[in-house]
């Protein structure tokens, strides 16, 4: 999957360290050292964004651990993606969003 350069630029303004990989026909963006919403523990984390539809979601955001100190969410069973065990909460987004919008709306799910 090719990501539009302007959308990557927008994303880079939120978290500059971005890389991508593919697995099973899905593309993933690894976002390093992302600041999570206030109160989240940990406050900074690497996250993995899948901007494509998978598992019945239009996009998904994966965390290396279950985030605490934030809004309680329905966290799914651990999922292994690209050889890392990730956590994700059930959070449905609309389709056709820009990458930065996607990320911010997922993060909004953690806000109290």
């Amino acid at each position, binding site marked *: 999957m090719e*990501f539009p350069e302007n959308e*990557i630029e927008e994303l*880079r303004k939120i978290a500059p360290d*971005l*890389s*991508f*990989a*593919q*697995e*099973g*026909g899905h593309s993933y*963006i*690894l976002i390093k050292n992302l600041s999570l919403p206030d109160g989240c523990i940990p406050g900074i984390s690497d996250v993995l964004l899948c901007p494509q*539809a*998978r*598992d*019945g*979601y239009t996009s998904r955001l994966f965390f290396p651990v279950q985030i605490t100190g934030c809004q309680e969410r*329905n966290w*799914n*069973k*651990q*999922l*292994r*993606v*690209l*050889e890392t*065990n990730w956590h994700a909460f*059930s959070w449905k987004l609309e389709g056709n969003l820009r990458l930065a919008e996607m990320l911010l709306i997922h993060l909004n799910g953690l806000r109290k």
Partner: protein
Amino acid sequence: MKKDKQIVKMRIPARIQQQMLIDLQRKHPFAYERVGFLFTKSKKLTNKTMLVLATEYVPVADEDYVEDKTVGARINSTSIRKAMQTIFDNKGGCFHVHLHDHSGIPGPSSTDKKGLPGVAESFSNISGEQVNGILILSHDSFYCTVKIKEKKKFVLPASVSAVGYPMNQQFNNVRRIEKNDVFQRQSFLGKKSNHLFENVKVGIIGYGGGGSHIGQQLAHIGVRNIVVFDDDKIEGSNMNRLVGGWFRDIKKSLLKTAIAKRVIKKILPSAKPECINSRWQDNPDKLQECDVVLGCVDSYAERQQLEAECRHYLIPYIDIGMDVYEEEDKSYSMPGQVILSMPGQACMRCFGFLTDEKLGEEAARYGKVGGRPQVVWPNGVLASTAVGIFVDLVTGWSRQKDKTIYLTYEGNTGIIKDHVRARFAPEECEHYPFSEAGPPMYKKL
């Protein structure tokens, strides 16, 4: 080149092996033989086993040969530089490949011994952490020697496998096979079958209704290296189908892997079952080391993850599963499946077995499902079918080649047959290209 401690396992997709054979048999305008480069990715596992996974073969271009009648083929420095650039770009390793035009195990000629180690050492200089080496193909076998960072000298890998249907596995740690009549009735599986069963490493994911049949049968066949993954303990509700489980095990809350070990060792005392009392995701190295994996898991999400891991490490994955559904008229149907997910060929997504819709419905149900109905006999049918596929895969006794396997089971009628989707599956999988084999590589954006 002395035979050293064998800690390297090399896996080459059979399709790449075929591609190499075809390419290396092409005539060159003046060289007697051809040369190519096999690019690889390596991963060091926690037990120091080094996995080497072939991802791409690139022939040396015609113009990069140098005329020299004293050797079969001489290639110029440009070809080596191109290979080194690819190693650098891929952060991988590389093998110098050529063909000895005969059948049986090839060996290096004196020219090979003199000239080729230097090439592999040049590759190692720019990719020290990766395994580099020399691969000589024959029509049906290989000679391989590798350079790893920890060793000054070249070493022979413990195994080299062409991953396809059937597998072509060469184990270098040849052990004298005990002569007895235990396997007399399965001698039709081939002269090498006992040797293959003794050396192949098989993973069983989930030791419940399906996995327990598989563990028992693998031991009967003579498979010694069985890795059983299950983090669960036996409960009363397992007793209707967990083969080898005893009533008194329930009181002791025995781990299912302990039951596996007991069953396997009683049947085959020389077996070395490994019990992994955790999810495979928490011990992935143990899975990556397996040559074949049989999955008996409950969910689509688990299947998706298992298949992805197996594809990364070029491991054939055999999936079994069944369910019981209540129909509108209150009757029950009992469908099941056996699927072979062979690296390079159709995956469970290509077959239409794994879909976003199914995964989504399952994710939505998460936490809301109780124990689903399961019974012993369909588990036995599906497990036996999977073991049959495994035996053919390892020995090639049936002489079927490049088989696509997606079988559907109708528990109500007892019929097992090819799923109609198997006919329409693509020959090549677009979801898991060989270029993605090995540990994931993130590229900077």
